[in-house]
């Protein structure tokens, strides 16, 4: 079984450690693929060399996490990055359901990111059902479970639990990520499964969130890299294939 952590930040953006340092540890922890979420302003070429070096050990993806102020702002952002990075994630960082609804309905968006307290308090069952129907992944970052303490942590666990319960009820695809910004925040897949247990995500579904669902996205990325790919659902088909 291959495990993926699709939400790591390195020193290319706000992270503390070099991509290679994080990559070495991720491989040691048992990941087959990771995505660096550094590529808002940084060109993906920055990891071209590392990608080459590590291609036999670990698959590398480039990801951008958009934090738009409005739905229009999101669309502008998507236009800019859609052909540059492998994965596009959207988060609102505030209680704005409109951004999330637009992101879920937009085929260019791969991931709806939930990591902060306010974001977990934003979506409900109907949104997750919509995400399921549109094939958009929900990202649950466990970073704040590690970083927060006492009252903040208990509040976070409660909100995450309420959200995760609805995600599971809606049968929406979701991924677990460490959201690590330094190598010390990385966690092995089994440790992430344990952290997911804190918010009552069953082990089996947590494992799927680290392997099966990310693999769906990986296949989608590979499909996009295909020269015959035009847009979501549209691909040039050769006469033989037909």
């Amino acid at each position, binding site marked *: 079984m291959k495990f993926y952590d699709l939400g790591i930040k390195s020193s290319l953006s706000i992270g503390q450690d070099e991509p290679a340092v994080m990559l070495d*540890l991720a491989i040691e*922890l048992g990941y087959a693929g990771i995505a660096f979420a550094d590529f808002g302003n940084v060109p993906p070429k920055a990891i071209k060399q590392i990608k080459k070096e590590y291609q036999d050990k670990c698959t590398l993806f480039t990801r951008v996490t958009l934090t738009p102020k409005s739905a229009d702002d999101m669309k502008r952002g998507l236009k800019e990055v859609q052909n540059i990075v492998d994965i596009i994630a959207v988060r609102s960082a505030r209680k704005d359901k409109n951004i999330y609804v637009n992101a879920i309905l937009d085929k260019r968006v791969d991931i709806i990111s939930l990591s902060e307290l306010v974001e977990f308090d934003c979506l409900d069952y109907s949104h997750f059902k919509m995400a399921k129907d549109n094939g958009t992944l929900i990202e649950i970052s466990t970073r704040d*479970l*590690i*970083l927060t*303490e*006492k009252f903040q*942590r208990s509040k976070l666990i409660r909100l995450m639990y309420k959200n995760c319960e609805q995600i599971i009820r809606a049968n929406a695809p979701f991924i677990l990520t460490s959201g690590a910004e*330094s*190598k*010390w*925040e*990385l*966690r*092995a897949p*089994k*440790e*992430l499964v*344990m*952290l997911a*247990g*804190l918010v009552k995500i069953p082990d089996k579904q947590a494992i799927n969130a680290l392997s099966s669902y990310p693999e769906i996205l990986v296949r989608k990325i590979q499909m996009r890299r295909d020269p015959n790919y035009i847009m979501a659902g549209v691909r040039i088909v050769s006469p033989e294939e037909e």
Partner: protein
Amino acid sequence: MNTKERQRYLLIKIITDGEIGEQQLIRAIWRSLSSLYGEFGTSRTGLWLIEYERNRYGILRTNIQALTMVRTSLAVIRQIEGNNCLMVVEGVSGTIEALKRKHLAKIKLNMQEEIQT
């Protein structure tokens, strides 16, 4: 009626950028357990540090019912006495012998490779 508690042994690999003593390690684990599950929850774990190779690995013993609690608490630890720290559960077994046979050899082999390089 058999009242003996069933135990599980965990082999944890420790990755750190500083020096972590035995007492510091066990105190950090207890603190993490207590912070997540409270004093009552912690009392149910029957946690014991059986063996510790400084900054390399440790063997913990716990009740079978508290295994998930202990593993979660280990995942939450990120610093011990100011040193960055990451704990990875390499294996779980019902006996120390089986644990060492199955998993410790792998860690020791890695340690040797590290020393050689």
